C-alpha cells in the first residue's frame, strides 16, 4: 500500500529560510550607542569580526541594513547598583536569509 501523500508541513517549507543572528554589546541602551562587542551568526556559521571592524557602528546602523531587534538589553540584570553584570547592554537582532543568500 502506498503511503498517503501529504503536503509538506509549513515548518519544513520555511526551513529554506535560515535565521542570521547578530549579538551587539553596546555602551548604553541608546540605539545609536557605539558597539563594544560583536558576534554574528551568518548562514549557519559563527563569524567573529575583528575588533574595530564591526559590520555596524551601532544598533541603529544594523536596523537600517535590514536587521530586526528581537531582544533589548535586559533591565532585570541591572537592579543591583553595586554589581556589574557581564558586558552590560546587549541587543540581539535577526535577519532571515533565503537559500539563495538574499533577504527573505
Amino acid at each position, binding site marked *: 500500500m502506498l503511503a498517503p501523500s501529504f503536503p509538506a508541513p509549513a515548518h519544513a517549507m520555511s526551513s529554506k529560510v535560515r535565521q542570521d543572528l547578530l549579538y551587539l*554589546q553596546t555602551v548604553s541602551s541608546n540605539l545609536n550607542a557605539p558597539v563594544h*562587542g560583536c558576534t554574528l551568526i551568518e548562514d549557519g556559521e559563527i563569524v567573529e569580526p575583528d*575588533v574595530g571592524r564591526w559590520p555596524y557602528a551601532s544598533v541603529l546602523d544594523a536596523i537600517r541594513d535590514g536587521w530586526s531587534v528581537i531582544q533589548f538589553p535586559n533591565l532585570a540584570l541591572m537592579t543591583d547598583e553595586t554589581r556589574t553584570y*557581564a*558586558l552590560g547592554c546587549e541587543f540581539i537582532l535577526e535577519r532571515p536569509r533565503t537559500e539563495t543568500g538574499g533577504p527573505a
Partner: protein
Amino acid sequence: MTAFERYYDCPPTLTDSQVLEFCKTGFLLLPGVVPDDVNRRSLEYCEAHPGGEPSEILKEDWFQHHVIRNPQAAGAVRALLGKNFGLPILMSNHRVKTPQPAQNWHRDGGSQFSYDLRYLQVFYYPEACTADLGPTELLPGSHFLFAHSTHMGHYGAIRGSYRAVAPAGSIFITNYAIWHRRSKSTAPGLRNLLKYNYFRHSAPERDWIREPGFDFATADYSLHGTPTFRQQFRDCNDTAQLFLWLCGESERFHVVGGQSWPIPAQRLDMPYGAPSIK
C-alpha cells in the same frame, strides 16, 4: 629532586603603583623571565608527559627554582599574596594543536566574585606564543564583571581585549576571576601553556615596595585605555576597594558618592571621603 615544600617567602618586587595597576587590569605580564635552557627543558618534559596535568614537574628542582620560584614572578606573587604564600601543587598544561577556532570566553571553574585576593592563576609559556598560535586573550578589568561562564558563550570579539603575545619564558599572573580564552590560531603548530595557582597564607598588609609620596587620596584608580563595561567611575570604586583590602585597610573603604574619592579629578584640595592612610 628535593622534599616538597608547601609555602615560600621571598622579597616582594612590586611597588604601590604596580599593585594598583594589577587591581585595575587583573593581570601582569612578565616577558621572558625564564632562562632559555629552562624553557627547553620544560618543553622536553611536556613532550615526555603530554597529559593535561603534568604535576610531577613541580618536583623538579630546576623547575621549582627557575619557574615556580622565579625571582621576578615569585616576587610579584609575594607582593600580591603576602608572606609565606602557598606554592602550586597542581600543574595543568593547555597543550593545543593549532590552528583552532577561538575558545569561548570564560572564568575558570572555582572562580569566586569578590573584592579580596586569596589566590592567583599563573600561566607560563615555555616557548614563544605569536599572534597566529592563539595566545591567551584577557579582558582587562573583567574580574569585576560578574557573569557565569555558561552565559558568556555567545560573546565574540570584545573591544579592549588583550592578547598575551609573548616571547619564550614569559609568565603572566592573573586574578583568577578574569575573563579569558584561547584566541583563534591560524598557523600549524603545537602550543604548550602551563597553568598553576598560588594561595594566600597570611593576612593582607601593605608590605610590598612602598613608593615615596604615594598618596591614597590622589592616586589614579581608573582603568585606562580600554572600556570598563561599567557605570561611569565604577571602575575606580572597584579598584579602590580591592587595593585597600590588599593594604589591610578594608574597613576604611567607604565611598561618599558624588564627586568624592576615588573619582579622578583636578580638585582644588584633597577629595572628600578619601581615607586617611599613610
